[in-house]
């Protein structure tokens, strides 16, 4: 076996992704607050449970923030342990909004952990609306929040540690599309030059792409079970991904059903071209046009600053490259064994 540079690169990148992708900690964040419903004009004690936090080792500050930007600071903070503390707030009689109900965000900040937010979770109700009074009682001045310097992945509610699946699930789909793209290139080349080897290359790449796609479906399903509570939902992204897999199963069936090698190659090559053209809008365009539960869909591109940040990109791009290289490697193995078996068959005849 000759180990060319790109195979070596694939191994090195895979190792890098596995190690850095699993070892890097998440940023500290707020897991849970209780109670989640309060009334104005009272002193409320809010229990804050953190994740990866070090409440004991540095001074904590906590704020409640209204959607209009107004804040109040906690008057007292009792630290129970590194992951639990109780913040007492004097909630004023009136809110700085013109609604009787407002969703407040809880913000904690400290030098060691940086600042973390539990967005719009605390529901507060007031008896009567007094906008001007409320604005006077709350502070508009944005305090300085601490940042975190250590290299860490973003903390997202609901996702938590599964944000690492960006490297092991999302990059599978990226690699699948790369392989399908290469196979379409070979299919078009076959249609121009009628060299059967090109068709076999396309066939091996499609098979590896199907492996990646099926693995993507299974891994997504496991993630969904522990995020949404079910193996499968009728979400547009999920259904379209399954549909595109079915299209490629169709490709395999067409190849299995036609005996004549030239006819088989011609029909399946043109099928392959149209399949990719059909699959790209199914997976990339349609889920963005409607609502989708899937992260990175329903209007927001996955590469926006909301979903991806630089710490994730440092691992995600190498993950995509390594899975693409692995896919090329695997499909090359399949292709070479195909060629060998064809040679041995024609030698027998």
């Amino acid at each position, binding site marked *: 076996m000759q180990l060319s540079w790109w195979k070596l690169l694939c191994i090195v990148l895979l190792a890098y992704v596995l190690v850095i992708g699993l070892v890097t900690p998440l940023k500290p964040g707020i897991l849970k607050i209780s109670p989640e419903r309060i009334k104005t004009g009272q002193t409320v004690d809010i229990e804050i449970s953190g994740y990866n936090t070090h409440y004991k080792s540095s001074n904590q500050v906590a704020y409640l923030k209204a959607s209009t930007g107004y804040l109040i600071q906690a008057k007292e903070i009792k630290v129970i342990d590194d992951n639990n503390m109780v913040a007492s707030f004097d909630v004023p009689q009136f809110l700085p909004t013109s609604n009787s109900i407002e969703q407040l965000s809880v913000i904690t900040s400290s030098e060691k952990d940086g600042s973390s937010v539990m967005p719009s979770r605390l529901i507060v109700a007031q008896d009567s609306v007094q906008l001007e009074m409320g604005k006077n009682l709350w502070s508009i001045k944005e305090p300085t929040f601490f940042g975190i310097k250590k290299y860490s992945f973003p903390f997202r509610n609901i996702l938590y540690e599964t944000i690492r699946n960006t490297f092991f699930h999302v990059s*599978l789909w990226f690699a699948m599309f790369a392989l399908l793209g290469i196979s379409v290139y070979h299919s078009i080349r076959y249609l121009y030059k009628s060299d059967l080897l090109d068709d076999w290359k396309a066939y091996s790449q499609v098979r590896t792409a199907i*492996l990646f796609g*099926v693995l993507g479906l299974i891994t997504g399903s496991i993630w969904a079970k522990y995020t949404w509570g079910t193996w499968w939902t009728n979400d547009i992204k999920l259904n379209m991904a399954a549909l595109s897999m079915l299209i490629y199963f169709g490709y395999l069936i067409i190849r299995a059903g036609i005996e004549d090698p030239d006819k088989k190659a011609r029909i399946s090559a043109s099928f392959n071209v149209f399949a990719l053209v059909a699959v790209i809008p199914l997976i990339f365009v349609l889920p963005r046009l409607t609502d989708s539960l899937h992260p990175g869909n329903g209007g927001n591109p996955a590469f926006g600053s909301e979903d991806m940040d630089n710490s994730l990109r440092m691992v995600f791009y190498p993950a995509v490259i390594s899975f693409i290289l692995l896919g090329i490697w695997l499909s090359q193995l399949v292709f070479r064994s195909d060629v060998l078996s064809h040679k041995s068959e024609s030698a027998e005849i």
Partner: protein
Amino acid sequence: MSKIFKNKLKFAPEMKYNIAFIMILVSAQNMLAQSSQSFMTSGGKINVVFAVIFIVFIGIIYYLIRIDRKISKLENK
């Protein structure tokens, strides 16, 4: 009659391996479901990440085993 029926039900050897692979996956998923919900959701759901990596690993190994079998068949010829 029964003989014909029997012959039709026989799977090709490759098919057998595919079915075995799918059964392993299904039973792995069942095992995950039976193990308490708290195991998978504890520690910020880190075990979900491990399960995903495990599945990807198993899938690629399965693919390699299939290629391996094909090549050893060629060698035996």
